[in-house]
Each structure stands twice: as C-alpha cells, then as structure tokens.
C-alpha cells in the first residue's frame, strides 16, 4: 500500500508503529499501556520540566543569560557594596535591595515557567466541522481556497478573525500564532527570548511586574554603587578610592556600573513602553501593526479599551487569572468516541499525512484534511478501535518529528537573538517607547543590534518571512509588509519547507 511513499515517510511510519505501544508485539493479555501525560504529546515546540509543571520555549539560552546577569550583579552588590553602605548609611539599604531582588526573581520565574495562554489545537472533529462549514461557504473543492477570515463586530469595530492552518481554528480576537513556539497564544504580546517564553494573556502581568521591579532594582543598584564610590572617594581622593581597594574590587565596581547603566536605559525604556500599552489596553503586536491608531482611519479606535487609564491598568494587572487551557499534567485519554474514518489503513496514512502536513507543504495539509473529510462523509456509526492510532500515534509523531525538524530550524530562526550576548545597548532602546514613530524606527538597521527590539520583531506569522530571519533580511520591507496586514497562507510555507528539508536530512542519517 505504501510502496510509492518516499524513504523518509516510510521511516517515519515504521517509527510510528514501534512507538505506538510500549511492547513491540501487541500482547492480548497486556491490557494496560503506561499512561502518558498530555505534555508528553504536546504538538507545540515547547519544553516541559518537572513532569509538566514548568513550560518554556524551545530556546532557553538567553533566559539563562538573564538569570546569570541578574544573579551576578546582585551578588556582587550584596557582597561588596552593602556592607559598606549598611555601615555608613543605614542597614535598610540591603533590606530593600533584598526585597527587590526576591521580587524580580519571583516574577521572572513566574513569567518564564507559566503557560502564556496557549490555545490547544482543534480536535479532528472540530477541524472537520470547520472545514465543512468553510467549504459550504466557498462552494469550492479541489483548488487551494483563498485565505480564510471571519469578520466580527466588537463594540462597533470590525475585526477580522484569521484561520490558523497549524492549529486548525479561527483565532480569537487578539490571539496570534507564535512561529517560534508553534502555538496560538491568547492576547499574544510578543515572544521574549530574555525570559525564554511567549508573553500572552496569562503571564503578561508577571512580565510587566518583572520589568518594572527590574527597573527599580537596576536604578537602586546603580544609585548606591555610585554613592559607594562617592563616599569612599570623599574619605580619600577619587583615584585613591579605586586604588586603595584591591584592583579586583575596582573592577567589580566598574562592572556593576556598566551593567547597570546599560540596563537602566533599556529596561526603564521597556517599562515605560509597556506602561503605555497597559494604559491603552493594547498588545505589542497591535501597537507595531498600528491596528488601532487613528492614522488608519477617523473611526478607528480600540474596542477593547475600558475607557480610562485606571480601568485599563486594573484590568490588566488585577483582572482574574484564567487557568491554563492545555492541561499539561492530565493523562492522555484514548477511549473517547470520535467520528473517525472507517478503515485502519487509510487512517494510518491519513494520520501520517496530516501530522507531517503541518510541517509540509500547504497543499498537502489541505489534501489530507479533505481526504479525512471524504472518508468521514460516509455514514459513521461505530466507535473505532483504531482511533488510538490516530490519537497516540499522531501525537507522538507530532511530538517527535517537529522536535527533530526544529534541530535544523532552530539554527537560522533563533540565531539572531542568541547572537547578541552583550548587554542591551543604550541608544536604540529608546526607540522602543516611541509608539507614534514605531514603524520607521524599527525599520532602521539599529534594530539589528538591539536585542530588546527583537521582542517586537518576534511577532507571529502575519509577517511573510519567518521572524527569526527577518532582521537579517530587509528591515524596511518588514515595516511595509506589516502595514499591509494581509494574511498569506504561503507565509508558513517557507518555514514548513525548511522543516521538510531538515526532516529528510535527519532521516537519511
């Protein structure tokens, strides 16, 4: 049946069969296969720790850098400056410093480890139902349908809901698909490499408190290190203050000052920008695209705003915290009734196809969905014993294959943020909090050196090219194409093609 299938596909299929059950042979008396938790078969490109309790993006290198920078600077401050300051001025200083430090760490870990508001992908039945509705609306079969959008009127504004081909759902308003994590995230703000996670509905307030408290902490440390230098130079000359203390100490002081100086500009700038966003109830994503700016039209306003600054702030920071929708630690249920295609062989092929399709060509994706639809169109009356094949195999497939493909992908897409190990530079970060001039400034080449600005570049797949490659390409083109706001399904193709090439490379080894 699968003679015509390429070597790589067959390889994947064989591995699919072997991972389906824990024993190689289907032993009839072995009724229980070890229960898997849902995070183990999660289709997105995330990493889980502590048996599903902790969830982060795939690339976490920059997050460790953030941790090291914070711990190092604070450690040096507490070890070398605090004793002197506590003695000379007041012991309250280390206490306040300590409180700020703990708060910063707490909010950082909370931002990095929590689920940003990932939307689970559609179940096969839902996807089939949506496809049916879209086909009925279009009246088309066979050829590639136009971009799928649905229009809603929210508080008087017309908002377009886009269809996500990867997750097979119509994205709720303000949701976006993060290409780095390969998930749709509710109220998507941006993907932050510094915290190693997306920032969305569920962790935006932690992110904001993190950058706010970090601003206070860096200003605090900066101020008191300078105070230390001034005070100890008053006792002797300035140079003697640096010379008397061992050379090591003076290096440390200079290091602290340098780190804090650069951090202050970028972090404080970022805090200011996000304060503006919160008070106007916008996401970074919306602000960059100018979705609600009055430049787009006289009647263009933000339909989500509560009217005044205070209400918006309260809503963002003190609103209810929605629970995670993806149930990471639940067990995979394989016995729920499903409207599945009848025969085993077709199911396997369909499952293989539909699983790889979200990494393969757009056409294959649509073909396989239509295939499943056609098979499902015949009267479906029985529960399938073959559905564990669809569920577990496809999830495992989805779990392993994207992981392997992203080994190749991870390089080009995220190399740019990772390639900036130096602390944020001073001037270009100021561009972050100038909302009116956002696009032209981001169009500048300065954006390339500014890791902070990457927050804004690393926005979802509306951008025609994969975001990680974007700054390498044409920053000006980036600005223009974002303005168009036109959804092109081909936008995901280059990413998918890369992963297909990667897959073939890996499987041929």
């Amino acid at each position, binding site marked *: 049946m699968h003679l015509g299938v390429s070597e790589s596909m067959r390889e994947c299929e064989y591995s699919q069969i072997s991972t389906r059950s824990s024993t190689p042979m289907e032993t009839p008396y072995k009724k229980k296969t070890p229960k898997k938790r849902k995070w183990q078969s999660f289709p997105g490109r995330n990493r889980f720790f502590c048996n599903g309790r902790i969830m982060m993006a795939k690339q976490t290198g920059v997050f460790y850098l953030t941790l090291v920078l914070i711990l190092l600077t604070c450690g040096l401050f507490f070890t070398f400056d605090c004793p002197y300051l506590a003695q000379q001025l007041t012991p309250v200083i280390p206490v306040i410093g300590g409180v700020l430090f703990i708060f910063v760490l707490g909010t950082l870990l909370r931002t990095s480890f929590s689920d940003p508001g990932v939307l689970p992908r559609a179940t096969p039945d839902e996807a089939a139902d949506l496809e049916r509705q879209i086909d009925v609306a279009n009246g088309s079969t066979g050829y590639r349908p136009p971009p799928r959008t649905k229009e809603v009127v929210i508080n008087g504004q017309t908002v377009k809901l886009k269809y996500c081909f990867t997750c097979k759902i119509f994205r709720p308003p303000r949701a976006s698909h993060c290409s780095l994590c390969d998930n749709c995230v509710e109220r998507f703000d941006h993907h932050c490499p510094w915290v190693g996670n997306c920032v969305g509905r569920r962790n935006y307030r932690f992110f904001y408190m993190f950058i706010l408290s970090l601003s206070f902490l860096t200003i605090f440390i900066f101020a008191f290190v300078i105070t230390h230098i001034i005070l100890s130079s008053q006792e002797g000359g300035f140079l003697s203050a640096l010379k008397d203390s061992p050379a090591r100490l003076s290096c440390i002081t200079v290091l602290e000052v340098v780190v804090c100086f650069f951090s202050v500009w970028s972090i404080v700038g970022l805090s200011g920008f996000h304060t503006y966003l919160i008070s106007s109830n916008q996401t970074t994503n919306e602000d960059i695209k100018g979705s609600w700016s009055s430049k787009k039209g006289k009647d263009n306003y933000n339909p989500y705003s509560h009217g005044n600054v205070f209400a918006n702030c*309260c809503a963002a920071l*003190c*609103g209810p*915290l929605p629970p995670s929708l993806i149930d990471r630690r639940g067990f995979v249920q394989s016995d729920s009734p499903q409207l599945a295609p009848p025969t085993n062989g077709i199911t396997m092929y369909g499952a293989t196809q539909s699983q790889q399709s979200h990494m393969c060509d757009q056409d294959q994706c649509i073909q396989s969905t239509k295939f499943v639809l056609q098979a499902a169109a015949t009267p*479906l009356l029985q529960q399938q014993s073959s559905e564990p094949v669809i569920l577990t195999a496809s999830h495992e497939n989805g779990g392993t294959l994207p992981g392997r493909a992203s080994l190749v992908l991870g390089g080009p897409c995220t190399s740019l943020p990772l390639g900036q190990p130096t602390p944020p530079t001073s001037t270009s970060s100021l561009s972050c909090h100038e909302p009116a001039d956002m696009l032209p400034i981001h169009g500048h080449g300065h954006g390339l050196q500014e890791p902070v600005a990457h927050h804004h570049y690393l926005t979802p797949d509306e951008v025609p090219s994969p975001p990680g490659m974007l700054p390498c390409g044409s920053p000006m083109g980036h600005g223009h194409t974002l303005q168009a706001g036109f959804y092109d399904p081909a936008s995901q193709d280059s990413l998918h093609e890369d992963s297909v090439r990667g897959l073939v490379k890996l499987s041929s080894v």
Partner: protein
Amino acid sequence: VWFQFHNLQDLRHSASLVTKVFIQRDYSEGTVCRFLTKFPSELDNRIERSLFEETVKTLNSYYIEAEKIGGQSYLEGCLACATAYIAFLCMETRYEQVLKKISGYIQEQNEKVYAPRGLLLTDPIERGMRVLEISVFEDQGSVSSSPSSSMSLAGGSA
C-alpha cells in the same frame, strides 16, 4: 441517580455516535467568554429550543461571573502581587472556583436534560474554551430493531 449515571455510561460506550455539533464562541462583546445562543439545525427534533438556550445562557452567565473585574479579583491580584505571586501557587483563584461550578452544572444538565434525549455536552474547558461540543447519539426511538441497545437502556430506566 444510579440509573441516570448508568444511562450516561451507556450513551458513551454502547450507543452510536451520529454527529457532533459545535457551538462556537460569540466575540461580539470582545474577548470575554461567551457562546452563541443560535439554535443549531441538527438539534431540531432532538431538544426543545428553550432548554438549549437556557443552558447556553446559564453557561454564559457563569463565565461572566468568572471573568468579572471587581472586588474579589482586585483583592486576589493585589495580594498575589504583594507576595511576588507565590500566593497563586497555593490558593485556588476565583476563576477556578467558577469553573468547578460550571462542570457541576454541565454534569447536572447532562443527567437531567441531555442524556434522556440522546445528547451529551462536553465541558468547553476540555476543548480549550473554543466550542461547546454536543455529541448527538442515535435516536432511541428508532432503535427498536436492535435488541441489545434497547435492552441496556430499558435496564437503565427500569
């Protein structure tokens, strides 16, 4: 209660699934969780319109209660902030409490209203709050020919 539960189990395991109806989200009031109250045509002869609308409206009101920005949510937010959000690890948020109430309500609705009509509601939280899934099973009235399923149901309702 036992016989009702038995009825639900029967539905899930022995009755045949005909189709699934998906009630989509209503975004006309923003990102707040609401479901469309439009009556789907597939349920035309299975359940009364008023019962269905009653269910959806009650669910919507529960979600509004969960997402309400008011006294309790402010208190929770400020308390949690003061403890560097460690408090969220220990306590159950208001949203989670309301979700528990919702799943209790759905279970009750299934037992009393939907299962006797061969329908089954799935809690939206299990579908990522995207849809309210209603599983439609074979109409019991037309199943007189197959003795096994009618026997199990008769046994259930006895």
